């Protein structure tokens, strides 16, 4: 099963990706977490720490200077540009910052290309996409089974979310809106008004997630019982049952 996570910058894509990956792995699934953001941060939210996250990014950037050798197979790619994260999640950094197209041709890597090439084989693949809607626009049928569109109660993020939802609908893909950092009914009303009647999960504004961001830790390690983290763990359960059904 392939899941991608999209939305405006700063809405919480990486927190959602990281927390769901960890929860699925804890539930016994084989999880590959794919960092397809050109500003890769998924390592932080998975709980490997900020400096380790930057080291992994540096390995990818090392291709530029010749410090890292190129890799031609997908398996080798996952091996070379990945590392293990807590609960057995395999993290792979797909993007590079200073490239016109994310990834390099020799590695055959763009987020959507990698999503095509990687075999699910019973694995759950979670792709944390770049901010905005660029990758979502390039997604075709078969790239992703579920698109999680993350938004906050802000006009800008909802404008982007609306477009991502519409584009996925038009392709006939399954889309779930993850309404993040929701504080009150007015927040919820603004979100509903913007995106209409789509499948939605509401993640309340959560002190544990804010603490995780400050401390550079995984939210699930800070407090797995906090209201926001609990909603994300429930979402992971739901995604897992979809995987079984498929």
């Amino acid at each position, binding site marked *: 099963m392939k899941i991608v996570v999209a939305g*405006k*910058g*700063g*809405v919480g894509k*990486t927190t959602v990706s990281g927390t769901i990956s960890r929860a699925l792995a804890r539930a016994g699934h084989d999880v590959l977490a794919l960092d397809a*953001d*050109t*500003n890769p*941060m998924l390592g*932080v939210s998975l709980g490997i720490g*900020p400096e380790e*996250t*930057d080291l992994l*990014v540096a390995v990818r950037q090392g291709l530029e200077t010749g410090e890292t050798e190129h890799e031609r197979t997908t398996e080798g790619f996952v091996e070379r540009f990945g590392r293990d994260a807590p609960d057995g999640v395999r993290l792979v950094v797909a993007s590079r*910052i*200073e490239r*016109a197209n994310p990834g390099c041709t020799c590695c055959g890597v763009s987020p959507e290309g990698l999503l095509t090439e990687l075999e699910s084989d019973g694995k759950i693949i979670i792709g944390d996409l*770049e*901010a*905005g*809607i*660029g990758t979502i*626009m390039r997604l075709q049928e078969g790239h992703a089974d579920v698109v999680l569109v993350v938004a*906050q*109660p*802000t*006009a*800008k*993020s909802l*404008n*982007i979310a609306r*477009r991502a939802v519409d584009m996925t609908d038009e392709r006939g893909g399954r889309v779930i809106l993850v309404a993040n950092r929701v504080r009150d009914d*007015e*927040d919820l009303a*603004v979100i509903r008004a913007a995106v209409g009647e789509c499948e939605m999960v509401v993640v309340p504004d959560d002190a544990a997630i804010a*603490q995780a*961001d*400050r*401390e*550079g830790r995984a939210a699930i390690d800070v407090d797995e019982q906090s209201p926001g983290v609990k909603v994300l763990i429930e979402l992971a359960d739901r995604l897992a049952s979809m995987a079984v059904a498929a």
Partner: protein
Amino acid sequence: MTDAGQTSTAAPAGLRLAVVGKGGAGKSVVAATLARLLARRGHHVLALDSDTLPGLSISLGADVPDDVPRNAAAERNEKGRWRLVKGVGAARAVQRYATDAPDGVRLLQIGKTDKRGLTPNRASHNAFYQVVHRLDEVRSLDDWVIVGDLPAGPRQTAFDWAPYARRFLLVVEPTWQGMLTARRIVRIARQQREDAEFSLVVNKVTPEADVARAEQFLGVPLLGTVPADDDVRRAERAGVALLDLAPDCAAVDAIEQLADTLDVRNIDPI
């Protein structure tokens, strides 16, 4: 060298900023509020928006025509490289394609992504890139303040989308993701531009926030902090300019102080 003010190689006198940082750090709110506050002090201000998604115009409170015909400004030469159309220099492009924003700010926007994607806007993007690379040559903008709002992350900095910037304003939330993003941007910008200067603005500061840690981590001088402010949340939720919704709120106060500091440092009194 002749009189520095007259030669075409002289650096423009005005304040020229690129506002950078992680997505959601508050770049557009800081950039827009700063631009308008500086305009209220009597400066000519050009705001540059190189994000293909909506942002700066909302935070400025500017009405922007849906489809500005900027595509007309660029063409491909015989080698397939983009250039500005003959007769449309950077000066004329700014004059023709910038639109009015509140407080007299002029706003130049890149073509935005719509349902058809980015492809129809390719000429506009190249035109914008050409224009920002030639702003230093535009004598009529010499005494203007330029505030550029860049999209999330280090990407555009890596591709040199803000060559006009004398100073990179790093807008950073006091989180590790925010700090790592800013460090990546600083490293890339330093590689490209030895003379670039950096200032740190720590945004959405709560009592738990560790501002000193961000300053130390980045090794960039702190220009100021902006508190977490519910009025900013309300403005962002409504999609309106902070200055219009809550002109006296704590965040505006803090940005006013940023303007004070920048104004004294970089601009001669008018």
